[in-house]
């Protein structure tokens, strides 16, 4: 695994010049936006004076200002997208290659919906999009992850006092964050899922476990031995022995450590000899910040940190150890 000093050497030797040129582009774009903003403001003021001279109603000022703001916002967004596109084309692939040469990156691709549905972690989405797909082989483990945004739709019908019905469409988030999948290092059949525990935290261990055992939608409740693991997760599966074959005491400890390292409620499933991990996050780990300096090693280190955190799951879960027949 790469260390901080490895990153510092990579930054100095490989991408320092690229970051400098990106920073020059960013500053140039910001200056362009500033000039455009000033020009639009000047035009708004000029038009305002013209309207006053021509005794045009003052209400016309508002649509003019709104139009100017829209034009400026569109222009700003275009520059931001160009900057993001350049950052993703020049910096992210290099960073991923640095983390591991067996990995590839496609900014506009994402994990397939079949894989998302196949994990069994979430309901089937009505809308499924994503971006920033990283995939490849890290030593002996095939991995894939991307940002995913999955939502489902509901329709609500409202009837007003006049008897007219109106159907309102609402969208609800199923999952938004990083969806990671990797080849697990053992053969197994059936399905096991590890979900964040909420019920035991609210109702206590005994009553919480009772409520959890009543739920049959994900299979049997699997009661494991590690109290720290049980405090964070609840496990369901199709078979008691298979679940314990997968979730060894060693792996349970690693999952607790991984959860603490990532710092949010992760969900996992083991199905079709793959492991799926859903990491909810609002933070877009590949997006550069347009209005902040980019060629600062500390800023670039943030991208490296998150990429390293995700790809490090392979080592954290010891997936490259292949002492079984897989």
């Amino acid at each position, binding site marked *: 695994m790469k260390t901080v000093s490895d990153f510092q050497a990579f930054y100095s030797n490989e991408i320092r010049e690229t970051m400098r040129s990106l920073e020059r582009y960013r500053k140039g774009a910001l200056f362009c936006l500033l000039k455009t903003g000033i020009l639009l403001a000047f035009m708004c003021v000029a038009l305002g004076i013209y309207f006053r001279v021509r005794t045009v109603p003052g209400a016309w000022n508002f649509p003019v200002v709104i139009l100017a703001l829209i034009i400026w916002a569109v222009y700003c967004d275009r520059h931001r997208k160009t900057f993001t596109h350049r950052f993703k084309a020049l910096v992210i692939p290099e960073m991923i290659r640095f983390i591991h040469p067996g990995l590839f990156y496609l900014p506009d691709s994402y994990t397939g919906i079949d894989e998302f549905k196949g994990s069994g972690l979430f309901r089937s989405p009505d809308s499924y999009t994503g971006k920033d797909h990283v995939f490849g082989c890290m030593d002996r483990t095939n991995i894939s992850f991307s940002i995913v945004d999955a939502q489902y739709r509901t329709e609500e019908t409202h009837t007003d006092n006049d008897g007219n019905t109106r159907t309102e469409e609402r969208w609800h988030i199923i999952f938004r964050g990083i969806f990671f999948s990797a080849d697990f290092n053992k053969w197994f059949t059936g399905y096991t899922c590890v979900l964040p525990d909420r019920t035991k935290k609210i109702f206590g261990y005994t009553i919480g476990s009772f409520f959890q055992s009543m739920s049959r939608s994900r299979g049997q409740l699997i*009661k*494991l*031995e590690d109290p720290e693991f049980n405090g964070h997760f609840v496990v369901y599966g199709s078979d*008691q*022995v298979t679940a*314990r074959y997968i979730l060894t005491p060693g792996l349970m400890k690693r999952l607790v450590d991984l959860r603490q390292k990532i710092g949010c409620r992760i969900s996992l499933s083991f199905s079709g000899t793959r492991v799926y991990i859903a990491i909810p996050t609002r933070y877009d780990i590949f997006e550069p910040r347009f209005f902040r300096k980019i060629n600062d090693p500390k800023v670039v280190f943030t991208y490296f940190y998150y990429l390293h955190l995700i790809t490090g799951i392979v080592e954290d879960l010891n997936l490259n150890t292949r*002492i*079984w*027949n897989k």
Partner: protein
Amino acid sequence: MDFTSLLISSISILAIIIMVNILISRKNRVDMAYATVDAMLKKRYDLIPNLLTVAQKYMGHEKLVLSTLTSLRTRHACMLNDGMSMAEDKEILQAMKGIMAVAESYPALRASENFLHLQGSLNEVEEQISAARRAYNAAVTDYNNAIEMLPLSLMAWIMNYRRKPIFEITEDERRPVVLL
């Protein structure tokens, strides 16, 4: 019989039926878990002929090690259907591990695809046995909890259900392993 008495009787009978079913279900789960452990032990046992075939090809002159395993296999073949005891299982496991340890001195054997596959299979089976034992312990814990906690303990006493032991290792196995 008035309505209240009828209601109380019905609820009591229903409660008794539920308690009996819970106890029987827990007991059956223990039996099933024990059968799974046996199935995994059988799976390990079935690896022995393959291990002997591969090992004999490369380490034919290690007669002591190979003959130990062969004789164990012959001795325990008839006991398999009655369920292997912990001591018998331990004997076979020790003999298999003995061959694996000696095999480390044979580079040709270590590199052999068959041997590598066998090693993987043995690791897999050991993990599955461990998982089956853990599942058995979980089933026994659930069963013991049921027969010792109120109100099921009363019904368990009537049905003569007794506490079951979980899988435990010996004092020898608790000691730290010393690598020479």
